[in-house]
């Protein structure tokens, strides 16, 4: 029962590390230059087929699942698809989109918008999307957003919530100096991470513990008291399973995070667009969380869960 997450975790991180060890650009190993093919065809006669689409994903299970869903929907639409999963953090896979080693990745509007424009102030779904569209690098585009949102969130255990009487991030202010905050290493340097907590809520935690081995480790550390406040995603099944309390975010430090396909314009054609928009129309936070329980808690194969979902659209 415990073994699957352990193995998955070990594999994921091993792959991430392997990728990081391979030189300047972890994504440029065997790219097979699909974009060059694509550009050549569309530059010539503009035939409809558009060639192969390489679907990438970030290095956490939900993004892998979403990538599998995109891949399944595209393959049903007759598009040739390959997947390149578990690439790394946004900083890593954006470089992959740029150099053509991937063509499509499931993104989150808020994270992308903040990455593209660290000074972003808007937080609603529409405004965040508009901001991301505006700052998107040339050659990339966003298709329709879904209702499914996977936000960054700060969670505490039920005991901590009761003991300190906290229900929102703002309530942490008098206690932060005694609390240890835990999360992935990138949370420390992101504008809406540790810095944002200080600027927006005035929170100075006693320590930030950087946990690089996936949310499973962060959840364990929170459950066992090595960290008091943890940064995990709002769709993480562990929240439900451990009755963690998701702290409210009254100042909207964490912007809207609608799931959206980020795609290289070279591979966009009506068939691709229709297939991905149909996925976006069907996705909700609820069915995404339900699928996450199947993948993470029950250990089902993400590709199989994705296939069932796409068949049901």
């Amino acid at each position, binding site marked *: 029962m415990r073994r699957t997450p*352990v193995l998955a975790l*070990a594999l994921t991180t091993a792959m991430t590390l392997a990728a*990081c060890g391979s030189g300047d650009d972890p994504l440029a190993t065997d790219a097979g230059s699909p974009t060059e093919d694509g550009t050549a065809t569309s530059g010539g006669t503009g035939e409809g087929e558009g060639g192969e689409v390489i679907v990438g994903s970030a290095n956490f299970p939900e993004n892998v699942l979403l990538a599998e869903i995109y891949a399944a929907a595209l393959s049903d639409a007759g598009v040739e698809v390959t997947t390149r999963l578990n690439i790394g953090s946004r900083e890593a896979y954006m470089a992959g989109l740029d150099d053509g080693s991937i063509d499509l990745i499931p993104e989150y509007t808020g994270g992308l918008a903040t990455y593209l424009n660290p000074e972003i102030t808007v937080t609603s779904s529409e405004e965040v999307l508009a901001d991301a569209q505006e700052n998107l690098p040339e050659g990339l585009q966003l298709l329709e957003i879904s209702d499914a949102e996977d936000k960054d969130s700060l969670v505490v255990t039920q005991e901590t919530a009761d003991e300190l009487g906290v229900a929102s991030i703002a309530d942490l202010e008098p206690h932060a100096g005694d609390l240890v905050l835990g999360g992935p290493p*990138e949370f420390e340097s992101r504008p809406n991470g540790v810095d944002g907590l200080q600027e927006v809520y005035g929170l100075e935690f006693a320590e930030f513990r950087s946990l690089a*081995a996936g949310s*499973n480790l962060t959840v364990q550390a929170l459950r066992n008291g090595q960290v008091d406040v943890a940064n995990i995603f709002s769709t993480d099944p562990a929240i439900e399973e451990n009755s963690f309390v998701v702290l409210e975010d009254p100042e909207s430090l964490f912007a809207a995070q609608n799931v959206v396909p980020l795609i290289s314009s070279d591979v966009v054609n009506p068939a691709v667009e229709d297939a991905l928009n149909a996925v976006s129309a069907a996705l909700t936070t609820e069915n995404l969380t339900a699928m996450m329980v199947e993948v993470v808690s029950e250990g089902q194969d993400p590709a199989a869960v994705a296939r069932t979902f796409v068949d049901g659209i």
Partner: protein
Amino acid sequence: MNQTVLMTWEWLTDPANWQGRGGILAQSLEHLRLSFVALLVAALIAVPTGLWVGHTGRLRWAAVNLTGAVRAIPSLGVLFVAVLLLLPRLRGELAFELPALIVLVALAVPPILSGTYAGVDATDPAARDAARGVGMTGGQVLRQVEIPGALPLIMSGLRSAMLQIIGTATIAAIVGLGGLGRFLIDGQASRQYDQMAGGAIAVAALALLVDQALALLQRVVVSPGLSSAARVR
């Protein structure tokens, strides 16, 4: 390329990166602390075992095969398994530190163990016979003949173990511990290559420094009659 070298150089020479709680100095000290604790524990296990195996000649096949097998264990995998097993059972910092120590000790035992038993094993049989001939007990032979004779190989086992420990201690940062690995893990997460490269150089420099320090120690503790420099003369 030149850009990266330049940025790395700037990162390494910026005094701000050396000072403070997360600075290079503080992380080097933390790295050393973890490394020396691991080396000490490994030596406490491996040296007595190696001496016993070398002196008695018993279980040599086990020592050879086990050290070979242990060397093949993937450190990262052991770290994750240990963390996930121990985290619910331990409180506080120890829950992260013990798994990291287990990994480093497992890594360091084989070179020390094989160095020790090989050193004892390689004692000149004539010297051993002579020692027995003048009436030494088994314990006296071990203490006065075999251990001094084995010291160069024991020391080289310790040095090679320490090099591996310092290199591998970087993975402790994955589970949130300090040390120079922080710069590699945090740098990768935020794509700050200058920080990653600078951290890697710092690890290499620390490993070389410690190796040189142990080499000095080796010259002090090894009998002059055994050192290669003396033999050349």
